[in-house]
């Protein structure tokens, strides 16, 4: 009885080993003997063979429909036909690819935005936007919640990073005069993104409900109150009352976690689309 059961199992393992031996990755390892093996692992041919093998496996195909492209023709088609890659053109010039063309700045901004959304959503699991709760939650995140401190730090530093890199990105666009026709509108969209970055930072600044937060927002919103005629009303609506209090906290919270990121995301997508339509200044 027990031998009967063991037999098919052995068969499964044997078949698995045979399958692995047949893969390109295994063969690319075996091609070099002795100490050269390790260098082969790092030399790309192993990685490439491994990627090709993985992308031919059943689970990969179930998700992505097709294996990773191998031939140049397949490679140029994938950017168009894959949903995730189709914000890119099929081919670009070598000049666009050069680091000194973009310094990777726009892409870095997009990456930081994704980091902010990810870490921000995780922080929301613990944070409660109430004046008698918010500060304690921040202290808890620092001292009690596993990885809470790391997540809060990552959220905070990416936010600062976004302000820095959006500014640098704008500076490079200016220095390369990439805002000139036909890219004027995309420059304006860029400015809107910069303003949204600032507004997100400002609303997020209040949420820890510490001394820094309260007074920065008091001073900041009082500046809005200095606008003639509409200023006081505007400030009242922004704060939800005459002073920075519970009503302000929930307003800033809603703006910070839903309204501003959503609108900014829409503008970002439009920004990318315009880079394609206007033609990238480095040659699209």
């Amino acid at each position, binding site marked *: 009885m027990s031998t009967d059961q063991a037999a098919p199992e052995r068969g499964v393992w044997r078949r698995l080993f045979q399958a692995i031996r047949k893969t390109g990755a295994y063969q690319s390892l075996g091609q070099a003997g002795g100490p050269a093996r390790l260098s082969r692992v790092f030399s790309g041919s192993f990685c490439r063979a491994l990627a090709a093998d993985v992308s031919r496996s059943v689970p990969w195909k179930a998700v992505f429909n097709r294996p990773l492209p191998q031939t140049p023709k397949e*490679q140029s088609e994938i950017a168009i036909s894959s949903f995730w890659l189709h914000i890119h053109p099929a*081919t670009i010039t070598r000049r666009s690819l050069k680091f000194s063309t973009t310094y990777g700045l726009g892409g870095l901004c997009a990456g930081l935005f994704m980091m902010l959304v990810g870490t921000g959503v995780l922080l929301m699991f613990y944070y409660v936007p109430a004046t008698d709760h918010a*500060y304690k939650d921040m202290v808890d995140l620092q001292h009690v919640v596993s990885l809470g401190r790391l997540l809060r*730090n990552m959220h905070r530093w990416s936010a600062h990073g976004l302000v820095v890199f959006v500014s640098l990105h704008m500076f490079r666009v*200016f220095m390369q005069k990439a805002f000139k026709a036909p890219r*004027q509108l995309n420059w304006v969209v860029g400015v809107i993104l910069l303003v949204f970055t600032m507004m997100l930072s400002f609303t997020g600044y209040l949420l820890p409900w510490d001394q820094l937060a309260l007074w920065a927002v008091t001073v900041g919103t009082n500046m809005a109150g200095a606008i003639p005629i509409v200023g006081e009303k505007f400030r009242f609506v922004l704060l939800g009352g005459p002073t920075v209090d519970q009503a302000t906290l929930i307003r800033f919270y809603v703006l910070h976690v839903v309204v501003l990121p959503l609108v900014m995301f829409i503008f970002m997508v439009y920004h990318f689309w315009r880079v394609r339509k206007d033609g990238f200044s480095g040659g699209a």
Partner: protein
Amino acid sequence: MATEDSVQPVAETDPKEYGLLGFVQGRPPAVADQEEERVSVYPHLISREFLAFGVMFMTLLVVSTLFDAPLEELANPGKTPNPAKAPWYFLSLQELLHYSPPFIAGFVVPSVLVLTVCTLPFFRGRLLVVPTGLLLATIIVPMFDGLIWNVIHSIAPGFADAIRVYGLPTIALLILTAVGLFKWALSSSMDDPKRAERISTRLFIVFVLFLLALVLIGEYFRGPEWKWVWPWQ
């Protein structure tokens, strides 16, 4: 009248089918790019993007492990910390707040900056010195608001008090600057487009440096009651 026989079967000579994707203005991009060497986005660009994201993620992890985000005492509406500083990217505005009324530093300056940056690409050629010059003026002029106001005050105190909150000296000076910049842009000294572009670029760089300087001053050179301190004090 054409019969069906007279229609040539195109498909036999040219098996491709073309669909119209859209109309675009200007030169066909292919013509300009013909000489340039092209590579496929996959894997050349995609791999770089993954690498950049990886480096960014790792850097962020290291930085976040080493440095903690600040968290001060619980908010206390009765006690303002001394000094009370805005986040660093607003420190340039806070520094201007020191010289000019809130209506200027908190509303006029940010609005003029954003609007000028927005319209900047619509100024072409020699006219580009107008927005770039105005950007620079917008952060320098408010610093003299108090000074000019003092002069007006010594002549007509009542009038000076009435206009203080509206920062009229700054607004008047900014309008004058804008007019002056237009005149300068159209003057013969800007006839050389290369020179005009060089000047506008420099104006923009000086503007950025000024903003940076104001941020650094606010961060490191301002102590209690917003008085000047040296960083090592």
